[in-house]
């Protein structure tokens, strides 16, 4: 990797949202391909995610880094669109009905976005039907991801996945679930394709699922 990209990766990881856009421009001006610049930032976020997973950094640093990444991507967007983009696919994400917790879901959403996906975030307290409707409006969606943070909204997660599983498009998508009370066993029991414990693994898993 060129020195300038290495520098960019460092700035993203450190969450320097103010400097990152300028550095992206600098890299492009220096002849770096937009796609390489993007991949450089994705790589930086992978490292951030890994450090988060190992408890070395926490929510604030991760959010700061994700924000910096986002700023950088904004600079790249028009160019990437020209090149046909690097879109890894669309992901629909939301917190299930009855649950208003969204900090964890937002982190997952940002990490998945950082991994090159286009994310449609439905917010919190999302009725099961809404996931299905959103898919119908976006049939190129690859993954539906649902979050639940309360023991008492686990049934709601179950219902949501059940409804998705009934759909004719089920074979075309993967369903991911997560949130503090969820376990891999529960995910399997309700018929989801994947569960991960944290946002970094969620992004890695998403990539794996569409590969």
């Amino acid at each position, binding site marked *: 990797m060129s020195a300038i990209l290495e520098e960019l990766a460092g700035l993203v990881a450190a969450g320097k949202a103010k400097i990152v856009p300028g550095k992206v421009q600098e890299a492009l001006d220096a002849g770096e391909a937009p796609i390489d610049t993007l991949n450089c930032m994705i790589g930086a976020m992978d490292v951030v995610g890994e450090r988060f997973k190992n*408890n*070395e*950094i*926490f*929510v*604030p*640093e991760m*959010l700061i880094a994700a924000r910096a990444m986002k700023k950088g991507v904004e600079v790249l967007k028009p160019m990437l669109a020209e090149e046909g983009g690097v879109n890894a696919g669309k992901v629909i994400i939301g917190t299930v*009905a*009855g*649950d*208003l*917790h*969204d*900090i964890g879901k*937002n982190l997952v959403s940002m990490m998945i976005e950082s991994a090159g996906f286009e994310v449609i975030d439905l917010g919190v*307290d999302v009725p099961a039907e809404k996931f299905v409707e959103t898919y119908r409006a976006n049939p190129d969606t690859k993954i539906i991801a649902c979050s639940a943070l*309360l*023991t*008492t*909204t*686990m049934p*709601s997660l179950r219902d949501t996945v059940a409804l998705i599983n009934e759909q004719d498009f089920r074979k075309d998508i993967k369903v991911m679930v997560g949130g*503090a*009370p969820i*376990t891999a*066993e*529960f995910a399997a029991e309700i018929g989801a394709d994947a569960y991960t414990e944290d946002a970094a693994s969620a992004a890695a898993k998403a990539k794996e699922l569409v590969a």
Partner: protein
Amino acid sequence: MNTITFTNENKTIQAENGENLLILMRRAGFKPDAPCGGNGKCGKCKVTLGDGSTVLACQTKIEGDLTITDIHGTPQDAQILMDASIPAGKKAAAVPRDNEIGEAQEKIPVSGPMLREKKVTVRPCPNGESISDWTRFAEGVGEPVKVDPRVSSKVGRMARGNGGTVYAVLFGNEVMDVYPESRDCYAAAFDIGTTTVAGYLLRLIRAGEEEDSEKTEPCVVTTDSCMNPQAQYGADVINRANYALENGMEEISACIHAAIQKLLDSMADKAGISTEDIFLISVAGNTCMHHLFLGIDVDSLVHAPYNPAVSDPMILRASDYELKAHEKTRLLMIPNIAGFVGADTVACLVATGLAEQEDWTLLIDIGTNGEMVLGRNHKMLACSTAAGPSFEGAGISCGMRGSAGAISKVVWADDHWECGVIGDGKARGICGSGLLDLAAELLRSGQMDEYGELDESPLVLTDGEHSENGKPVTFEQKDVRQLQLAKAAIASGIHLLAKKQGIGIDEIRTVWLAGAFGSFLSPESACRIGLIPEELNGRITAVGNAAGEGAKMVLTDAQMWEYAESISKESGFLELAAMPEFQDRFVDELMFPE
């Protein structure tokens, strides 16, 4: 049928294929520790099997005969705080009632003592007239009373055998009972916490008081406490409620009724009285404990928008809730404010008189749910912050509740840790107040940065040689993360309450910490780590078990009972989950002050 053998406990029971081991253990009468309610997340329900392997009981289905050699955990004990130390100052004032009590409600006295004894002269029935015993008794009472078949059946004969005099115990317009002599009359107050239950036995009336010129004040005769037996169904209110939703209310309600009965019996025993002399019972508890006690459906409580099934104060019959005291003993249920701000908070407000303060005052009960109220001059706003159980040691690698063996005080002495241990024995783990001290000292000595990154992880507080069980007491990076989540939740709540009340943090003059944790923690450490904003350092006072105090107060004075109702209706509620700015604040508060 399979045979399940618990070798340590010397017990075998039969089980069907597919039965869940955790449920089976409850059925066998053990009280397994299951903080996460059997979700397979907390790892506390671990048992060792005959083949030496360990499994999670909640994730184990019976598929054949099974031998369990070791049940590792039973719900941990906690220190139970009975006393309150309410700062002197302006207390609750009488509030004029604007609305009449509805027909269905019991009429309670408008002012004065809740329970009264009256010496009643029952005039003999004149010959040739046929005036009922009850009518002549009621005349003697001299105020309108509700006719009561049980009392009327004995009052005539009792009066005749007693020179025309009986002593009536009155609760509002209700005659609880009549006696030939004046007697001591009692009441019991309960603070039903998620973790612990505190009971107080009060003497409201002293025998012969009416003849005495001096009136004796109600007093606490004895107290008792126990762990909340519902803990076996989950550590937090959500898991309890979830258990009730999945398995019905009966079991979980019955076990708290039984615990209350046991406390009633033991307190009566200690005081040398009969439970039949206990005429009133008051209950303060969070909304979930309140609902589970009454067997009220908790569905609405644990799904958005999290409203209680009922908030109003209620006067019920104790006998309807499996409580054996006097046949007519009344159960006074203190009202709730919102789904996660319950009767315990109302009781704290009654005890402290927060509404009467002229300066902005913040009351916080730091616990799993972190309820708080910010107010002055009857302008109150409450919220609940879902801090999680880290302050009770859950989710912390060497965490434990504040009971014997817990490190509760920590100082960094330049090159080593000096730890104060509850009970002065050897350390076994670290409790909430120890965690706050530790984090504060780590920050002070530069061993942790404001993002919460430790220089060294795990760090050893007490090595294996000096600990109780030969295992070192350590603290790890992931523990800091749990602490950050919990402290950020509380701190965000404080900031958003202040914002909604339109004041700056600095305008809060007084902070009252209610509950056991609030009494044991060091306010300086709490401020150093930003659990409580640093500006408030020096303005913090622990008020002890204010909920218990409030529960006692509503028993003694009718005005206080009414006050509880008006306070609960006056207090506003702030739903943090519905505030878009919560996340930003929360993320900011995840960091430690520099």
